[in-house]
C-alpha cells in the first residue's frame, strides 16, 4: 500500500468495488479497502437481484455467483391470497437469487483487474483534515495504525457508514425509515424453487417476510420490521420464529446460518456528497424503500461515483460542485422511483390485514402487463377506488 492515492474507496461491497473499478478504469490511482479479512463474508442480505437492474447497473453476468434463476415472484396476503408475477413482467426484485459472497468477490476482482489496489483487514477510523479540508484517511491496516493521503474518498461503508458522518454529510434517518431484519438460511424445507415469495401483513408489521430460494429445498427466509413499530429488542427474531413455526413446509427446517441487519427505507437524501467525499449504495441510503433491495442500486451509484471521481482527478477539481455530476447521474436513474416507492411504503405500512387480503385478491383478478407500484395502484383504482384513495397523490 502506498502513502498516497487519487481515490480511496472505503468498503469492498458491490458499491465500493464498482466505484473502485470505474475510478481505476478512468485512470485514477485507486485504493479499495475492506475492514474484514475476507471480501464477501459474512453475508447480510436476502440475495435477490432483479434482472433489469443488473443490466441497468452494467453488472457483468457471471454464472459462478448465481444460485438460482427465478420464474417469478409471489405476494401472499395474511389470508393466503396469492398474487403471482412472472419474471418477464416483474419490475423489481425478481430475476436471480445470488451467492453474495461470490458476487462481492467477483466485483472486487473486476476492480483489481481494472487497476485498483485492494487491501483487506484494513479499516478506516477517521478522516484527516488540514485547514478544514479532508486530505486523507486514518486506517488500521492489518492491526497497525497507518495514514493514507488522497484527493477523493468514496464512502461505500454500508448501512453503518462512518465516512459520511466524519465528513459532515447528514445521513441520519428517522426510525420510521429503518427496517430491522433477521434472516435464516433454512434447508430441508418444502418450497417452490422458482418463485421468490413475499408475505405481507401483521406477520411482519411495517415490513414483510421473504422466502428467496437458493436451490430446491433451501432458501433465505427473513423478516424486516418497521423500526418505529418494534417494542423491544429481539422482536424481529421472535416474529420470524413464530411465522416459521406455523409453516407446514418448514416443520423439518434445518438452519444453515443466521444473519441480522439494518436497512434504510427513506426518501432519497438531499445530498450524498461534500468536498472531497462521495457516498454510494447503502452508505448514501440509496435503497428501494418498498423492497429494501439495494445491491444493484449500490452497483449503479458506485459506477457513477467512480466515473465522476476519475473525471474529477483529471480536472483537478474535487469540490462538492464538481460532484454534482455524480448526484445528477444517480438521481436521474433512480430518484423518481425511490421517492415514489417511499411514498407508497409510508402508506402500505399502515394497511390492515383485511385490506391486504382485498388488495391482493383484486390484483390476482386483474393481472397486469407491467408490475410497478404505479401500475398496481392504477389497477386497483379501477376496481376499488376507495382502497387507493390514500394513494391518490401517487397517481
Amino acid at each position, binding site marked *: 500500500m502506498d502513502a498516497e492515492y487519487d481515490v480511496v474507496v472505503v468498503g469492498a461491497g458491490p458499491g465500493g468495488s464498482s466505484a473502485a473499478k470505474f475510478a481505476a478504469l478512468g485512470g485514477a490511482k485507486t485504493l479499495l479497502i475492506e*475492514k*474484514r479479512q475476507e471480501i464477501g463474508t459474512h453475508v*447480510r442480505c436476502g440475495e435477490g437481484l432483479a434482472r433489469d437492474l443488473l443490466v441497468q447497473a452494467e453488472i457483468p453476468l457471471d454464472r459462478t455467483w448465481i444460485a438460482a434463476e427465478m420464474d417469478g415472484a409471489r405476494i401472499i396476503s395474511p389470508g393466503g391470497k396469492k398474487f403471482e408475477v412472472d419474471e418477464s413482467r416483474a419490475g423489481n426484485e425478481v430475476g436471480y437469487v445470488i451467492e453474495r459472497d461470490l458476487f462481492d468477490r467477483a466485483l472486487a476482482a473486476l476492480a483489481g483487474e481494472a487497476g485498483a489496489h485492494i487491501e483487506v483487514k484494513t*479499516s478506516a477510523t477517521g478522516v484527516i483534515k488540514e485547514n478544514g479540508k479532508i486530505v486523507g484517511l486514518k486506517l488500521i491496516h492489518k492491526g497497525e495504525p497507518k495514514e493514507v493521503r488522497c484527493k477523493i474518498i468514496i464512502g461505500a461503508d*454500508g*448501512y*453503518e*457508514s*462512518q465516512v459520511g*458522518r466524519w465528513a459532515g454529510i447528514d445521513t*441520519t*434517518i428517522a*426510525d420510521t425509515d*429503518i427496517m*430491522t*431484519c*433477521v434472516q435464516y438460511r433454512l434447508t430441508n424445507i418444502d418450497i417452490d424453487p422458482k418463485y421468490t415469495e413475499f408475505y405481507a401483513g401483521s406477520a411482519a408489521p411495517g415490513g414483510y417476510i421473504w422466502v428467496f430460494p437458493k436451490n430446491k429445498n433451501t432458501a433465505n427466509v427473513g423478516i424486516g420490521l418497521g*423500526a418505529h413499530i*418494534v*417494542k*423491544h*429488542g*429481539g*422482536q*424481529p*427474531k421472535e416474529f420470524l420464529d413464530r411465522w416459521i413455526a406455523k409453516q407446514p413446509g418448514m416443520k423439518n427446517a434445518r438452519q444453515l446460518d*443466521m*444473519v*441480522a*441487519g*439494518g436497512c*434504510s427505507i427513506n426518501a432519497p437524501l438531499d445530498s450524498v456528497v461534500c468536498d472531497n467525499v462521495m457516498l454510494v449504495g447503502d452508505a448514501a441510503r440509496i435503497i428501494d424503500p418498498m423492497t429494501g433491495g439495494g445491491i444493484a442500486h449500490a452497483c449503479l451509484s458506485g459506477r457513477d461515483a467512480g466515473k465522476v471521481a476519475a473525471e474529477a482527478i483529471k480536472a483537478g477539481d474535487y469540490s462538492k460542485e464538481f460532484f454534482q455530476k455524480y448526484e445528477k447521474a444517480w438521481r436521474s436513474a433512480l430518484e423518481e422511483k425511490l421517492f415514489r416507492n417511499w411514498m407508497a411504503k409510508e402508506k402500505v405500512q399502515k394497511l390492515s390485514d383485511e385490506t391486504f387480503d382485498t388488495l391482493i385478491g383484486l390484483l390476482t383478478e386483474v393481472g397486469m402487463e407491467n408490475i410497478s407500484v404505479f401500475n398496481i395502484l392504477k389497477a386497483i383504482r379501477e376496481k376499488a377506488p376507495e382502497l387507493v384513495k390514500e394513494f391518490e397523490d401517487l397517481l
Partner: protein
Amino acid sequence: MPTENVNKCLHCGLCVGSCPNNAIFLNEVRLEFNDDCTECGLCSRICPVGALTPGRK
C-alpha cells in the same frame, strides 16, 4: 450507555447505522459506545436479536 450481550450480537451494524448521535462503533468483534450516547434507547429497542440492554440515565 447500553451494554452488549456479546453472545447474542451478530455484528450486523444496525445499531451503528441507526444511532442518531453516531455514538456506536463496530470493530468487527464488539461494539464500542462513546460519550455522545444520550441514552435514547433506540439501539436496544430495534436490535433484531435483543443483544443490547439500555443503560441508565
